[in-house]
């Protein structure tokens, strides 16, 4: 159904921002209406969001009309005209962002997502983050990410200042998280566990665990105390040195004044970089810790798999902490949980299983160290200086975040209940060994009303442990029995790939069946109680 466009298209030049903004806004309204009518998404949250987006778009159209009327007045001078046009361009940008959001909602359709995965993730998020509307969607970019849609919608509303939208936004609440996973790994369920890190960001934002306001004093204190303060001075010197070397390379003649300028610039750049990195490091490490806490050791394995390519990379990886530091930190935290929270109680759990996880973790650590010591080609002067600077900066950051991280761990321990690797996980491993779908509730003689909910953490942990301890051990030489079968590399790859795909399908089916099981028993219970009353 086409929306009745209420503007005279002939009045505008086809390239004018007003014309483009009108077209984009009206087509957005059309699409929202279509999506509402089709009810493509079975979730409640997106429908609410569609309402807000519709009001917001209408607000944008009203604002464009108002600005366009102002433009048509004769008394508007050139400066004012430019300002108005810029505002229209900003609205156009906002409308384009809303178009992108619409695509995200569209992407929540069942056919685009692994069956049954969304509901268990929602359950997990609600367990730790409270009653929230959530969008989980695949994205083309190979990335896993989180952001809060409400923040962006509010920013858009700040531009148009629409009261109606403001009221609707208040109804949505403070958070409407969008969690994205790499579309390419849609069916690779074992990597979906990286979403736990993104949930970590959400929990951190809600509970303000890593906020700089809480940890700022400690950070400043560390920065001003030796040895960190000495390292910091060395970092500034190095930054200046790098800049000077670069300038010399460009054959520019440095004067005294210019030198001072370079010094000032390099120092201030290094300071900004340091502050940004401290914030990101705190946020990322906090999210990692929360992920290990809520999902268990399988997060470490998934993190390792996704970061594998970056482990050997010694250069700066954006503002993020290097993968080896993240993985080591997770392992360290998991080990403390092991002792303090009785993560593995040998009396109640399968000790062989625990032992094999520990062995795997040790193997991972060895792998990381080996990659670190790998010889790299002879670097240039600038590369050497950059590497030295990067290593120094990493050292400083490790020192700086140490204190805040330990208090962050304490606050996480206070407010987030840890995931228990109970005997259920090991029972699920047994099912996988027999190529049976790991349905959580299967085999437990419980009343259907008290049947445990689909526990995604247990299923994914079981699958990881199974994969690491039973399926991966087919490499030549390790078992000694399958050496002939996997003599060539191609055969080895195939022998890894096929069981992994099979396991992924089994896990997906298991999760889906558990989800159906839950919905069925809920409805049956509701039906019974209605009949009784």
């Amino acid at each position, binding site marked *: 159904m086409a929306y009745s466009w209420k503007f005279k298209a002939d009045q505008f030049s086809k390239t004018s921002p007003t014309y483009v903004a009108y077209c984009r806004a009206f087509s957005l309204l059309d699409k929202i209406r279509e999506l509402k009518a089709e009810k493509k998404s079975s979730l409640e949250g997106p429908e609410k969001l569609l309402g807000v987006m519709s009001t917001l778009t209408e607000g944008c159209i009203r604002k464009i009309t108002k600005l366009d009327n102002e433009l048509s007045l004769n008394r508007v001078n050139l400066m004012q005209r430019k300002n108005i046009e810029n505002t229209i361009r900003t609205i156009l940008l906002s409308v384009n962002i809303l178009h992108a959001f619409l695509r995200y909602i569209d992407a929540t359709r069942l*056919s685009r997502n692994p069956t049954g995965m969304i509901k268990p993730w929602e359950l997990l998020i609600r367990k730790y983050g409270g009653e929230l509307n959530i969008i989980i969607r695949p994205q083309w970019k190979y990335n896993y990410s989180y952001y809060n849609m409400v923040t962006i919608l509010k920013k858009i509303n700040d531009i148009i200042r629409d009261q109606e939208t403001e009221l609707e936004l208040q109804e949505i609440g403070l958070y409407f998280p969008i969690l994205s996973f790499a579309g390419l790994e849609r069916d690779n369920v074992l990597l979906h566990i990286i979403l736990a890190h993104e949930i970590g960001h959400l929990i951190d934002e809600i509970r303000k665990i890593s906020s700089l306001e809480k940890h700022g004093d400690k950070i400043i204190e560390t920065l001003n105390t030796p040895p960190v303060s000495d390292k910091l001075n060395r970092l500034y010197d190095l930054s200046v040195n790098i800049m000077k070397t670069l300038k010399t390379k460009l054959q520019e003649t440095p004067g005294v004044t210019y030198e001072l300028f370079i010094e000032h610039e390099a120092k201030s750049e290094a300071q900004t970089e340091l502050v940004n990195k401290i914030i990101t490091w705190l946020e990322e490490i906090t999210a990692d810790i929360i992920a290990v806490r809520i999902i268990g050791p399988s997060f470490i394995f998934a993190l390792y798999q996704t970061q594998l390519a970056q482990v050997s990379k010694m250069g700066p990886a954006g503002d993020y902490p290097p993968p080896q530091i993240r993985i080591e930190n997770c392992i360290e935290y998991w080990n403390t949980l092991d002792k303090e929270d009785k993560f593995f109680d040998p009396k109640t759990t399968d000790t062989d299983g625990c032992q094999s996880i520990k062995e795997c973790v040790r193997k991972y650590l060895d792998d990381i160290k080996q990659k670190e010591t790998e010889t790299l080609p002879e670097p240039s002067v600038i590369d050497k200086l950059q590497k030295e600077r990067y290593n120094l900066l990493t050292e400083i950051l490790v020192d700086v975040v140490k204190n805040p991280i330990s208090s962050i761990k304490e606050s996480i321990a206070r407010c987030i209940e840890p995931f228990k690797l109970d005997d259920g996980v090991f029972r699920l491993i047994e099912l996988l060994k027999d190529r049976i779908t790991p349905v959580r509730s299967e085999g437990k003689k419980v009343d259907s009303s008290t049947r445990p909910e689909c526990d995604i953490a247990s299923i994914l942990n079981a699958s990881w442990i199974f994969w690491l301890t039973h399926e991966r051990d087919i490499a030549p030489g390790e078992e000694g029995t399958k050496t002939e079968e996997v003599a060539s590399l191609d055969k080895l790859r195939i022998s890894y790939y096929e069981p992994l795909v099979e396991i992924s*399908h089994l896990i997906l*089916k298991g999760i889906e069946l558990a989800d159906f099981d839950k919905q069925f028993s809920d409805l049956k219970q509701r039906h019974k109680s209605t009949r009784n009353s």
Partner: protein
Amino acid sequence: MDVEFNNLGVISKKEITEYLNQKKLIISPMLDAEIQIGRCSVDIRLGNEFITTKETQLSVLDVRDRENLKNNIMQYQEKIRIGYGEPFILHPREFVLGASLEYVSLPLDLMAYVVGRSSWGRLGLVIATATLIDPGFKGVITLELANIGKVPLKLYPCLRIAQLVFHKLSSETEGYSGQYLTSTGPKFSEIYDDKELPYIIPKGKNDTQK
């Protein structure tokens, strides 16, 4: 304690329950055992995945031309997934592949037949044509659904759509190891993998021009 039966043939409710309790036979999830386990059969439910064929673009499926057959099957099939409580509409004369909701694992001394429920048969729904399940099979059961009635039928996931009748074998046999093992959704035909095809229907000279 092991299951011991002197009589061979179709097994009854008591024996089915015994097999299920001993985890020799697995039907997962059994949403409502009381309703599903009948006197000599177990009702299975409809899953939420379907495979339809884009017939309008497909000229022919010829088993002789194995490469093209495989490509055609991959290219012209479409997987549809629906949510709990949502309908799948099967029109008259339409043929689709569905699957059981349950993941089934048979022991080595049992085989099973998939049989339609008469309640559905009376509405014009044919459930399965190839109905035998081998001992040792693990996976969901692909159902060949066809509406031979005159009105469209709305099918919903979790509806009890077919039943399994189990037969006891005279002795344990080798487990099923075919291409449909551990399937988790409906699977289209993999007839191109039949090993005897090249010598049963050898390629003629004219075939290469196709």
